[in-house]
Structure formats: structure tokens, C-alpha cells
């Protein structure tokens, strides 16, 4: 027999176990943040955690308000000072971590512990605002499991459970919760986001395209292997030299810096485009970059992204910044020109060069133009110059001074695509030829596993466009210097000196294979899990046989599925655990049934002793058996100690009941 003991204060060991479980949760959920936030927050959290644990062991007192209150203000001020803000994802996460540390500092009661685990859930959510890679799944599963285990321990009155039992119980709860979670995930009505615009920030640190370009300021271009976007082609994949992915078009030049004149550019209607040549259809999944431009193969004429338009510079622009990963399909033609010529004012602006900057270049351009027969001839001579003279392609160019184009063309002669595009466009403008710089990506790698084209940040490229005979023509001066860059990609274009290590790594077959496999998994993850939204939800319902699925269908379907799951859970909890009844009770019930058959029925509320007394009165002849059986039953039932009645006596009782034949009344 068990005993329900009176309530008592949990002992020191129990308290320690509880704190330990909770600190485990805290440590686990803050892992993805610890490398991102400022180092002092990491140290604060780890320090407070260790101190709180030690406090439990050493029996030190909790800190007084004199320490805590100034600490709270100091920590809040420190967050504000470090992040210059207390809103936004970065600062918000930091604030949560600091709050968590401070809460641990004063955690004493079960309620405090519950608050700590609630803060932990917010922290997990904050991690997904930064990124939602594949690791999110184990992170959610383990994070929630740990906090469930901690809740089991925290909510207990009295002694904590042994770890093994906690783990079993937690696993049971999570496994039973998973089907419900999946139903909610797929059927909870999704709505187009965001309904409350808030910058998630977080993209500022990412490398990638920018709205300005100043090659003279860069002395070392760092290469990021992070993915810019992935493309799946409907049909053939264009050759590498045709894969110019158009991004921000720079039209304004101040002698040093090219910049993108964003908004205010006129919109081009696709009907005004005259297209020709091969076309490509593809689906592009763009990683978020926090800016308005969309990437497309030159020249896009159809796209599925609703809130996007084509600017006069044939750049695809979204009306809202790309804050989430988006997917769109597009069709691009190799050749495209506007039927209505660009207005002269628009063209004129692209002849502009600031006076007094890069004088040597201007003089050289005038001289060369005079020697040339036409604009085209002049530009070919410029390309020949790059091709034949001593120009090098490198990612570690020298810094350039006040007249960067002069210095590049006549002194350093080292640079990467931006230097060449910038110099080329400057030379064109110097000869009064309208020119602009286009930034974007070139090439990309085909993943043989899923046939996706992976375009990385390191594929970023810049080229020029010039206005010749009433038409914009692409000119890629980098191709003149380092044709491999265009044909084969960046790695081939680099001299050995540039990035030995990088090349070696990339060339290791196994490593490369692993990278590509991982990327295929990531692509599938993005395509099927992360991209799940209102559209895919409608598709899901349509596949399930709904003609015109709307929100009502979703809610109905969700409610039905949830009810079924709940019923299954109730059934499971109720019947799977009801195994064999107590054998003693079964024997006694047989006895009662036999008596009932003879006409003496036991009332629901009648105890065994009073029933026996009544039965004996009514069945005088059976009195000895009735009394013996009842006595044995009562003794076994109410006096035996331990979980089961002694087997020998139980056997005897079984025999007695078996032999019992009451006379009928």
C-alpha cells in the first residue's frame, strides 16, 4: 500500500535538481544566440547561470534588492548602449537574454521558474527570425522537450522524479503532441504576411549586392559561399556565359562611386518590349536581403511576383523589401529591346561625368575616340586594351586615391569586375557614349543532385551597358581580362596566389560533394517546408478535393482533424492503460455474481461486510461460506501490505469462490 504523505517543503536536493533542469533549458535555447550577441551578454548569462547553480550548492542567500535593482537598470542601459536601440531583432534578442539572466538571479519559487521557461520559448522564436536552417527542427524538438521535462520537475509537489522517468514521460508527451502539431502546421489558416510591418534587420551584415559601388575603396574582396538564390529551370539550363543575373543598375557616377537611383525610375510595360532569341523559364528562390531588388536572368518579360515591376533600366524591382525568402517564376529572353526608344533625357543622364575628376582618363578617351572610326570601334579598342595590355584580375587590388579610374587604368591595373566595369563605363561616357554599370551575379553552379542552379554571393559580378545605335548592348570588360571568370566561374579566374586554400578545399571531391548534397537538402527544405504559406495551403486543399478552398474549409478541416486526434488520445489514455483488473476484485465480483444469480444482489454502495450480513440472513444455509469468503476478502483487501495479496491465500479464496454454489431463493 502506498501512502500519500503530508505536504512538506522540498529539500535542498530537489531544489538543486529543479534549478539544474531549468539551467539546462536556458543554456540549450540560448546556444544559437550566444555567438551572435555581444560577448558581454554571453558572459553575463553563463556567469549568472553558474553562480545560481553554485548558490544552490553552497546555500548562499539570494541577492538583496540593493544588488538586483541597480543591476536591472545597468543591464538595460548596457543593452541600449551596445545596440543603440532596444527594438529590432538583434537588440530584442539581447534584451531577452539579459532579462533571462536577471530572472535566473532572483528565481526562487515555482512561478519564477515557469516565467523563465516562458522567456526561453520567446528566445527560441527569436532564433528563427535570424535564420531557419534545417537545424531548427532538432532545436525545436530538444528545446521543447527540455522545457517540458523542466516543467514536470518544477510543478511537482515534494520530491522530484528520477531522470529516467522524466525522460520517458517527456518522450510520451512529445510523441503524442507531434500529430496535433502537424495538423495545426498544415491546416491552421495562413494569411499573407506581414500585417504589421517591422524590420527584422539582421541582413545588414550579409554580403551581397549593394545600391552603390566604389571599387577604389576595396582592398580585399571577401568571398562568401552563402547562397544568394537558387534556380530551377524548366528545360535546358543556359550556358555559364549566358547566365547574367541582373540586379541593381548603377547610373549615377560621382567620379568615385557609382550608385543606384532607386525609386523614381519610370516603369516599363512588358508590351513595349520587343523580344527574340532563346527564352528560359525558371523558378527562382531568393534568399532575403532586405532590399527591393529582385534578381532575374537578362531580360525578364514575365514574372509571378505580384508586387514587382520592371524599371526603365530593365531591372526587376519589388515594391516591398525582400524580408523573407521568396520564390517566383519568370521567363527571360536573351534578346530584348524597347519598341519605344528611351527618352533623350534618360539617355542624356548616362553621359554625365563630374568635371575635374579622372582627367587623365578623359584625355585618353578623347584621344582614342578621335583615332577610332565609330563608337563601336572605340569601345572595341578599349576592350582590346584590357585584353592586350598588362591588366590583372585579382581580388586584392590596391586602394585607389581621389581619381580612382586614372589610377586604375594607368598605374595599378589590378582589380576585379567592379574596377573593369567602372573604368569601361567611364571611358564610354568620356567619349560621350551613354553607359551604365549593371551589378548582379554571373554563372552559378549546377547541383547534379537536384539540377538546381546555386548562385552564391561569391558569384556577384558587375558589367557595363552602352548605348549604341539606339540600343543598349552588354559589354563585360572582365571577360576581356579574365575570360575564365565568365566561362568557368570565379575559382578558375583567380591566380594561384589569390586563394590557394579556397581552391584546394573546393577541389576536394568529397568535400564538394558533401556541400552539394547539403545544398540539395536545404533547397528541398526551403521549397517544401519554409515556403509553406497561403498559396501552398490552398494547393494542399485543392489536391485533397476541395474545388475552391477558402478559410472556412480550412478551419472546418482543422477542427475535424483535431477532434479525431483528441478522441484518439482520449481513447488511448483510457483503454490502453486499463489492463487486467485487480485479481482479488475479480474473484470477489465472481462471488457477487453468483449470489446475484441466486437472487441476492449487492447494492452499489453496500460494503462487503454489510452485504455479507444481509446475504447471510437471506441465505441461512450458505451462511458459513458467505462469511468465510467475505472475511478472507476483507482481510486480503484491507490488511495486506504491499502491492498484491499473498498468492497462497488468493489461491485459496479462488478455490472457495469456485466451489461456492448458493441456494436459490
Amino acid at each position, binding site marked *: 500500500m*502506498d501512502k*500519500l504523505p503530508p505536504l512538506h517543503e522540498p529539500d535542498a536536493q530537489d531544489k538543486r535538481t529543479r534549478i539544474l533542469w531549468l539551467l539546462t533549458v536556458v543554456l540549450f535555447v540560448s546556444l544559437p544566440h550566444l555567438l551572435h550577441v555581444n560577448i558581454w551578454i554571453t558572459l553575463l548569462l553563463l556567469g549568472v547561470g553558474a553562480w545560481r547553480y553554485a548558490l544552490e550548492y553552497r546555500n548562499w542567500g539570494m541577492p538583496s534588492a540593493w544588488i538586483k535593482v541597480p543591476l536591472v537598470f545597468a543591464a538595460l542601459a548596457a543593452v541600449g548602449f551596445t545596440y543603440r536601440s532596444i527594438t529590432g531583432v538583434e537588440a530584442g534578442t539581447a534584451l531577452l537574454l539579459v532579462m533571462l539572466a536577471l530572472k535566473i538571479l532572483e528565481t526562487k519559487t515555482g512561478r519564477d521558474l515557469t516565467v523563465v521557461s516562458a522567456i526561453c520559448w520567446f528566445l527560441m*522564436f527569436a532564433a528563427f527570425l535570424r535564420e531557419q536552417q534545417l537545424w531548427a527542427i532538432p532545436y525545436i524538438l530538444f528545446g*521543447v522537450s527540455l522545457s*517540458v521535462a523542466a516543467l514536470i520537475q518544477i*510543478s511537482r509537489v515534494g520530491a522530484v522524479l528520477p531522470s529516467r522517468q522524466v525522460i520517458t514521460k517527456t518522450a510520451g508527451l512529445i510523441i503524442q503532441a507531434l500529430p496535433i502539431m502537424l495538423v495545426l502546421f498544415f491546416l491552421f489558416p495562413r494569411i499573407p504576411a506581414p500585417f*504589421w510591418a517591422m524590420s527584422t534587420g539582421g541582413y545588414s551584415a550579409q554580403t551581397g549586392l549593394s545600391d552603390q559601388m566604389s571599387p577604389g575603396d576595396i582592398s580585399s574582396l571577401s568571398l562568401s559561399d552563402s547562397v544568394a538564390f537558387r534556380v530551377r529551370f524548366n528545360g535546358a539550363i543556359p550556358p555559364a556565359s549566358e547566365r547574367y543575373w541582373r540586379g541593381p543598375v548603377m547610373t549615377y557616377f560621382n567620379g568615385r562611386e557609382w550608385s543606384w537611383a532607386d525609386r523614381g525610375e519610370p516603369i516599363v510595360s512588358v508590351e513595349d518590349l520587343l523580344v527574340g532569341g532563346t527564352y528560359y523559364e525558371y523558378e527562382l528562390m531568393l534568399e532575403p536581403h532586405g532590399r527591393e531588388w529582385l534578381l532575374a536572368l537578362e531580360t525578364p518579360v514575365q514574372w509571378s511576383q505580384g508586387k514587382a515591376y520592371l524599371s526603365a533600366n530593365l531591372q526587376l524591382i519589388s515594391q516591398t523589401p525582400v524580408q523573407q525568402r521568396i520564390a517566383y517564376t519568370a521567363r527571360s529572353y536573351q534578346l530584348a529591346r524597347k519598341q519605344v526608344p528611351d527618352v533623350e533625357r534618360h539617355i542624356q543622364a548616362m553621359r554625365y561625368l563630374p568635371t575635374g575628376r579622372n582627367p587623365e582618363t578623359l584625355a585618353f578617351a578623347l584621344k582614342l575616340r578621335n583615332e577610332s572610326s565609330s563608337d563601336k570601334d572605340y569601345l572595341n579598342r578599349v576592350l582590346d586594351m584590357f585584353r592586350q595590355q598588362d591588366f590583372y584580375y585579382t581580388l586584392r587590388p590596391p586602394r585607389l586615391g581621389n581619381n580612382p579610374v586614372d589610377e586604375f587604368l594607368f598605374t595599378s591595373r589590378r582589380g576585379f569586375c567592379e574596377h573593369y566595369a567602372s573604368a569601361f563605363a567611364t571611358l564610354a561616357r568620356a567619349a560621350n557614349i551613354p553607359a551604365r554599370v549593371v551589378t548582379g551575379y554571373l554563372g552559378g553552379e549546377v547541383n547534379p543532385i537536384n539540377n538546381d542552379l546555386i548562385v552564391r554571393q561569391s558569384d556577384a559580378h558587375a558589367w557595363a551597358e552602352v548605348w549604341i545605335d539606339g540600343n543598349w548592348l552588354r559589354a563585360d570588360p572582365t571577360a576581356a581580362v579574365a575570360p575564365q571568370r565568365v566561362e568557368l566561374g570565379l575559382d578558375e579566374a583567380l591566380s594561384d596566389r589569390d586563394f590557394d586554400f579556397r581552391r584546394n578545399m573546393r577541389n576536394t571531391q568529397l568535400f564538394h560533394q558533401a556541400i552539394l548534397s547539403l545544398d540539395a537538402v536545404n533547397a528541398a527544405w526551403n521549397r517544401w517546408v519554409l515556403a509553406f504559406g497561403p498559396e501552398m495551403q490552398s494547393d494542399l486543399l485543392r489536391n485533397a478535393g476541395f474545388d475552391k478552398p477558402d478559410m472556412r474549409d480550412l478551419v472546418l478541416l482543422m477542427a475535424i482533424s483535431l477532434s479525431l486526434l483528441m478522441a484518439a488520445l482520449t481513447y488511448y489514455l483510457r483503454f490502453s492503460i486499463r489492463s*487486467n483488473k*485487480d485479481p482479488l476484485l475479480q474473484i470477489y465480483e465472481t462471488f457477487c455474481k453468483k449470489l446475484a444469480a441466486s437472487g441476492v444482489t449487492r447494492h*452499489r454502495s453496500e460494503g462487503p461486510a454489510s452485504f455479507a450480513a444481509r446475504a447471510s440472513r437471506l441465505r441461512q444455509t450458505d451462511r458459513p461460506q458467505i462469511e468465510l469468503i467475505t472475511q478472507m476478502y476483507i482481510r486480503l483487501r484491507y490488511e495486506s501490505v504491499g502491492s498484491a495479496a499473498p498468492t497462497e491465500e488468493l489461491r485459496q479464496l479462488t478455490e472457495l469462490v469456485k466451489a461456492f454454489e448458493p441456494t436459490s431463493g
Partner: protein
Amino acid sequence: MKGLVETLRATLADIRNALRARSNEWILKRQGTDDSSVLLHRRRIYILPTRAGLLFATVALMLLIGSLNYANNMGFALTFLLTAVGLVAMHHCHGNLAGLRISFKQAKPVFAGDKAQFEFILDNNDALSRSQISAGLERTVLVCGDIRAENRAIFTLPLVTSRRGWIACPRIELSTTYPLGLFRAWASVHMDLPALVYPRPMDRLQTILRTSSEQGLSGFSLSGEDEFSGLREYRSGDSLRNIAWKSAASLGILLVKEYKEGGQMPLWIDWNQLAYPDTESRLSAMCRLVIDADNEQQIYGLRLPGVAVSPAKGHSHLHHCLRELAMFAPTKPSRS
């Protein structure tokens, strides 16, 4: 400011208590009074979120809004897993209590001022072990523990007594917040269980001082003429005078000296021979005399207005006398 907060808190507590009282009335009306053995059927189990559960729900709601706003699918996954865990925990909490059988075992009589001990048995006939089952009277949780699968547990609910007579066991509440503390499932059991409360035995010295020494107390001796016969363990109600303090100090347990019977004259403990102004004091003094007489193995009888217990001795006689004292109701105003 502080006063306002206090007032607000008090008002909220009032509202909560009123709601609780109302719901308890409703439950009693719905279920009726119970037998001395009750199966906690699923329909008798009530469940509501706890404070922690409300916090949990609030967090889940905020995470849902955040996930919708950022269309963050991993945010949805997290939110929905938490929600699902909460729902599953609710079922576990409910199932943890359902199917138990509570049976009244006994309530031994106590002296007024002591705690009445209501003993119950909880039967768990399922292959599922029950964790964190709390039991208490009204809303106060008094005991809490686990019951293994196909097992039974005993528990005692103490109830403070102040006056002699019958005391009724209040509403019994069985509850659990297992597994996560997010929900509290409870069942109300209203058993009609009276426990007998004997009068509080009066302090010994006071009794003697107020007792007239000439009449009827010839067997009552202070002189220690009786022959010492041995030591036995202390029982509640033993006279302090007989405690063997020396042995107690050396052995660490209270031992009481036993004496062979002295005089053979039956001792009458008589209402009329006690000089107390009020009924309760008189009964209290008589209770003391009865206990002492029993301790000293006297043959004694009891006389109350309208009631007489003929002289005898032994355990059942003692309780017979105490019972008469506990239930004594003066039919006419006391003569004091």
C-alpha cells in the same frame, strides 16, 4: 498606490472566492451527496488552467501572432508544438485523476483541540501509475503523493476540532496538476462522515483542585499506595504523574508506570460532585477523571444528568464513557 494595489488584489480574491463557492454549490447540486466509496468517473472530474497554464497560453498566443506576422514557418512549428503539448498535457492531467476510487476507512475519535483524522483509501485499479495526486479538505491541499499501477494508497486528512460532539467531514477535494502544472483537474467528494470529538480533558492539577475531596473519590489516590507493577509505553491520555521520567530520559521514549489496582471500591465520576460553573468545564473535568481512572485500572462508573454508565473497566468501557461525555446534551439548564 500601494493601497490601491492591495484593494484591487483583495477585490479579485473576493471575486475568486465567490466564484469558487458558487461552482462548489453547483457541483454539489449536480453530484449529490456521495456514499462512503466513490469511483471518480470522468464526468466528475473538472479541469481548468492554472496560473502557469494561463501564462503558457498567453505566450503561445503571442508566438502565434509573431509567426503570422513574419510568416515564419519554424515559428509556427514551435508555436504549434507548444500548443499540442499543452493539449496533450490537459488530457493527461484529466486522466490522471479519472478512474480512481476513494473509500472512507475510518475516523478515530479525538479529544477536542486535537485534529480529527479522517482516513481514506484510494484504489488505482489501472495499469497506469498515478502521479501527484493531492487530497485536502475544501481547497486546502493536505497530502500529495503517487500511487503505483494496480495499487492502493492510504491517506489521512486532519481536521482541527474545537468542541466536543459530532464533527462533519467537509468537502473532500482530490486534485492534480500533473504532468506539467498547466492544468488543475479536481474532483469534489461530499461524504457524510461524522467523527466523534470527546471533551478536552482538563488540565490535571486544575481538576484536582476543583474537586471536592470527601465525596465519592475515595478510590482516587494521590499517595501512591498502589503497588508498582511495571512499565509500558505512553498512550495519549495517560496521566503525566505516572510517567517514568528517569527511564524516559535514558531510553528516549515515554514510559508510564503501571500500578496494580489499589482499592476495589468502584469510583463514581459524578456530574453533581464537581464544582464547575459551566457544563463544558464540568465535562472536561469528568473526561480527565475518566482517563485517569482508566490509566490506573480503576473500576469506575459515570453519572450524568439522565445518563449513568455502570462501573466497569477496560478499553471499551472507557470509550463508552467518553462517548457519553462527548454526546451529552443537558436537557435542562445546568444547575450551576
